């Protein structure tokens, strides 16, 4: 099963700390390779916290570890970082700013590809 969500990337305190422990550090990598989804969405996908999911957008794809988050069912949140950036397009609509928030993504179980 796959679900369509609106992807938001953003700051978390662990991601902020990870900037200074180094982008190779366990803290940074664990935090930035995590996706927060609503509990009902996790259930719908048949995955639990800690399981891996494949996230695809029009610009790229990546594997993320699930975390239960206080997000609406149609929203997924990924902390800013190298992993999340692979899902973001480099177009800026003439503003200089890419769409780091509010783009469409499809999330499915990693095993299902």
């Amino acid at each position, binding site marked *: 099963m796959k679900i369509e969500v609106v992807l938001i990337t953003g*700051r978390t305190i662990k991601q*902020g*700390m990870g900037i200074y422990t180094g*982008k190779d550090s366990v803290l940074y990598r664990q935090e930035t390779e995590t996706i927060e989804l609503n509990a009902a969405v996790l259930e719908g996908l048949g995955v639990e916290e800690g399981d891996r999911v494949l996230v695809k957008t029009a610009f790229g794809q990546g594997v993320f570890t699930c975390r239960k988050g206080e997000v609406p069912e149609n929203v997924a949140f990924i902390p800013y970082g190298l992993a999340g*950036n692979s899902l973001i*397009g480099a177009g800026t609509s*003439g503003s200089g*700013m*890419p769409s780091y928030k509010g783009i469409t993504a499809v999330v499915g179980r990693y095993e299902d590809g």
Partner: protein
Amino acid sequence: MAKVVKNVVCTFCGSLCDDLEIHIENDNITAVKKGCALSRTKYLNAREEVVPLVEGKEASFSAALEAAVEILAHARHLLVYGLSSTCSEAQAAAVALAETLGASIDSTSSVCHGPGTLAKQLVGIPTCTLGEVKNRADVLVFWGCNPVEAHPRHFARYSVLAKGLKVGGRRERKVVVADVRKTATARGADLFLQLEPNGDFEVLTALRALINGKDIVGEGAGGLTRAQLEECSRLLKEASYGVFFFGMGLTMSRGTHYNVSQALALVRDLNKYTRYSVIPMRGHGNVAGSENVLAWQTGYPFAVNFSRGYPRYNPGEFTAVDLLRRGDVDAALVVAADPAATFPGRAAAVLGEIPTVVIDPHYSATAKLARVYLPSAAAGIGAAGTVYRMDMVPLPVKKLLNLPYPSDKEILDMLREGVKKCSGSREAGSTTRKMAGTGK
């Protein structure tokens, strides 16, 4: 020898808390008092064992500098980028270097509050200092920002929890939070507006209508009910002194600068009824300074190009992500920023394809892609300088440690001297220098 340095300015985020106590032993930071989790991590990891690198191999500092000069002097269109985690003296040196080389210069602003700056140019901004927030503000709006995680001491020092002269602590302030997610900041709000993704513009427009005594069509907007919108407009109007803080939720969502323009227009409308100010929640320690320095030296806050010998401004054309995506630049100089870890994958990858020079105290993700890496002494740790808080108040930062490398400013000055010797500079004909009375 052990010592304690008091009243240290933390340069992690735009709050620039100036009360840190840093404990130093044998030129190493051993403890950070009064800080937050972010500042403690930053200062306890301040000393990183790094070496200059050319093509990934260890080199002497002078050899790396020479290799960097070669790249910069031979670039046809250089991008100078970053500047938000260094002091304003280094930012000024970067502008001078960009001008000498006819380069494009852009700061991390373009991927954080740049759209807010465009909106300021369109609408204008009534603003105030964080001191006024602390002493006077009884209604605080946090729109699309999450200070509990991104600016952890903001509430205690300047806003929600601060005890001011005219307004006491939390009980005397009303807090409105607008966000797509129920963040840690939203959990403590008196009124939480849970927006639909990309619903900001619609909600701000509806609030403007209600505040101006007009009705809205339909039963709500942007994920909010009519009742929620009415409650919010009432609460906003009841302020004696309101302050509207905003973050990436506005600048990174669809509409970017239009979202912020609408927020600024809302605050302009509110000023017909009561006193309101706006402060962007600046992320990096001195990103506000980068806009100030660029504006006073070139007339423009970011996305500036010097290829014609005078500064031109065009976000969307001279912004870093656009220049890289389109392949418009053939070399890059990155100072005190890590675009390889913050730009969309496609734009970041270009930094590994073109010759890139990195000046950074840390061996960053961008340094790993770079042709030349020049380690530096970080401003506020290994070098003194000036930084600007999110409310544009300048603060001096101290040198705390003796680090083995020069400061960002010193390195940028050395590079400029180097390229001037290496190639005929375009500086003599520079319009900005003539206008500033320094053209020779």
